[in-house]
């Protein structure tokens, strides 16, 4: 029983990261029509930001949660302005190729600098230890990650689906030319969207730093699973990507308990099954 709940918890944690990353991907895809391959690398960059802030400047976890997304977001804005903006008129595949190249560069630079072994990052003192729930032991930090990621996801959903800014964003997704004609600065909105999207990845990176070791390749394999999550959920709805992310994390955790050999592949198998019966994804619309 202990082990089952343990795996469920790990599944929920992984699900939290899938949800936050696929959310960022979906938001970026909606407006830019680009699959951001750098997402994994920027998630990793976020974790390294937190590590560097602590090691070199003595700035702790809580400030890192704020600073790392801003740093990475600024970098994202720069990339969007100088590179991605030149590709919007071309086939979308070029965006994929460009961001793939950028991901290689970022990962290569970090591996040159830090090698490929992981760097440890301490759990902040406020969140060390855990609570004994009777049927299982719940580490406080893990509980915090789940709660925080749910809050982040719901906030993003609220901003996009329920606020004025979000309505501009959704309108620009449908018809950018028309929205621009109404006097809204669409190019700036695109830049901000990309910055916020990668900022979310960096935030996930900071949250992941104490759980997974801070490692130059931590984002590389994760991002492929997240792609599968995105295909399963479809990019149609924000809520869809959140639910799919958490759901698949849990499924993965359960697989680890019942049939560990398949835990690496279960998400991909689900993707294949979904493709056979619902090619647009669980929450997607055909387009």
């Amino acid at each position, binding site marked *: 029983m202990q082990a089952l709940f343990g795996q469920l918890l790990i599944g929920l944690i992984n699900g939290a990261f899938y949800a936050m990353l696929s959310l960022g991907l979906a938001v970026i895809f909606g407006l830019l029509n680009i699959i951001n391959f750098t997402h994994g690398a920027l998630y990793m960059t976020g974790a390294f930001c937190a590590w560097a802030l602590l090691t070199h400047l003595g700035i702790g976890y809580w400030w890192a949660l704020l600073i790392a997304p801003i740093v990475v977001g600024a970098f994202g804005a720069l990339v969007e302005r100088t590179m991605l903006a030149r590709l919007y008129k071309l086939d979308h595949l070029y965006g994929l190729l460009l961001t793939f190249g950028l991901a290689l560069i970022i990962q290569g630079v970090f*591996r040159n600098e830090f090698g490929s072994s992981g760097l440890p990052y301490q759990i902040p003192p406020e969140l060390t230890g855990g609570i004994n729930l009777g049927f299982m032991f719940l580490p406080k930090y893990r509980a915090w990650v789940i709660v925080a990621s749910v809050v982040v996801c719901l906030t993003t959903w609220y901003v996009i689906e329920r606020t004025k800014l979000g309505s501009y964003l959704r309108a620009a997704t449908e018809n950018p030319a028309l929205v621009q004609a109404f006097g809204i600065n669409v190019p700036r909105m695109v830049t901000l969207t990309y910055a916020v999207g990668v900022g979310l990845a960096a935030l996930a990176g900071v949250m992941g730093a104490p759980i997974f070791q801070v490692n130059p390749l931590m984002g590389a394999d994760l991002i492929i699973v997240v792609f599968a999550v995105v295909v399963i959920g479809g990019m149609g709805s924000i809520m869809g990507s959140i639910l799919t992310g958490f759901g698949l994390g849990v499924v993965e955790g359960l697989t680890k308990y019942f049939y560990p050999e398949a835990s690496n592949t279960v998400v991909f198998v689900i993707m294949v099954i979904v493709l056979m019966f619902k090619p647009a994804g669980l929450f997607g619309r055909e387009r």
Partner: protein
Amino acid sequence: MAATPAVLTAAPPQGKRRILVATAVMALLLAVAPFAGIYPVFLMKALCFALFACAFNLLLGFGGLLSFGHAMFLGTAGYVCAYAAKSWGLPPELAIALGTVASGLLGVVVGMLAIRRQGIYFAMITLAIAQMLYFFYLQTPFTHGEDGIQAVPRGRLFGVLDLSNTLVMYYVVLAIFLAAFLFIYRVVHSPFGQVLKSIRENEPRAISLGYDADRYKLLAFVLSATLAGLAGATKAIVFQLASLTDVHWSMSGEVVLMVLLGGMGTIFGPVVGAFVIIALESYLAPFGQWVTIITGVIFVVCVLAFRRGIVGELSAWWKARSG
């Protein structure tokens, strides 16, 4: 953003005679290359990757489909071929044939799934399926996990040619490469190739003209997978090794880069791209991670400034000069 037509930078049409002459020159250069002081093992590696890249180009350059998981075909054929040659003791020609067929069959299954979605989704789906197979090969016993299948015997081709002689091996690889290259050239210039290009340019119109686009795309996918398998199986015999490197996603990225750098949708582009990248990797090997960084930089530069690739730019320049 409004729907943009799926047009990757198309190749300028090339004269048939010019291509045949260029092919003959290429074959001649490759035939004398080992005597010009170029290390035959390097040449064989480059030729295997050139074949892989040509197979990939058939799908991307002429079919407009970007697969981000093509390493699965290279690696699967490699594993099957290595296992057949080592554990079953099959002669090399049968081992290679078996590996190639295995990748072709895998191509049928993956193709049927992947062509249900287009563009970016197609890339993500192929990537995800390739990753699934990577984990499968990592865990299944017959591949020996991280070690790979080592010390695969090269054997005697048709019981006659002793492949343990490097030069003999080289000419066999060259023959396989040239045969596949001419086959691809033939496919591209056949009615099938023309329909494929029309689907790349405008799929709805091709469908309205009565072409079953999905069947054409599937056939292109299977052909590409089979030829990629031929490259992987040959590579396994040449290096006497089948390992996880060949199924990893970075290998899928590498072949995209070769085609992009050489020029997608050109006949010779993938060959040039493969030789440049393999040479680069050989010379930069001592510098560790710089290979990854430089690979990334080439990607970015190609996408931003150099979308026609080396061969595409050259032939555009040639046409501007002579036209």
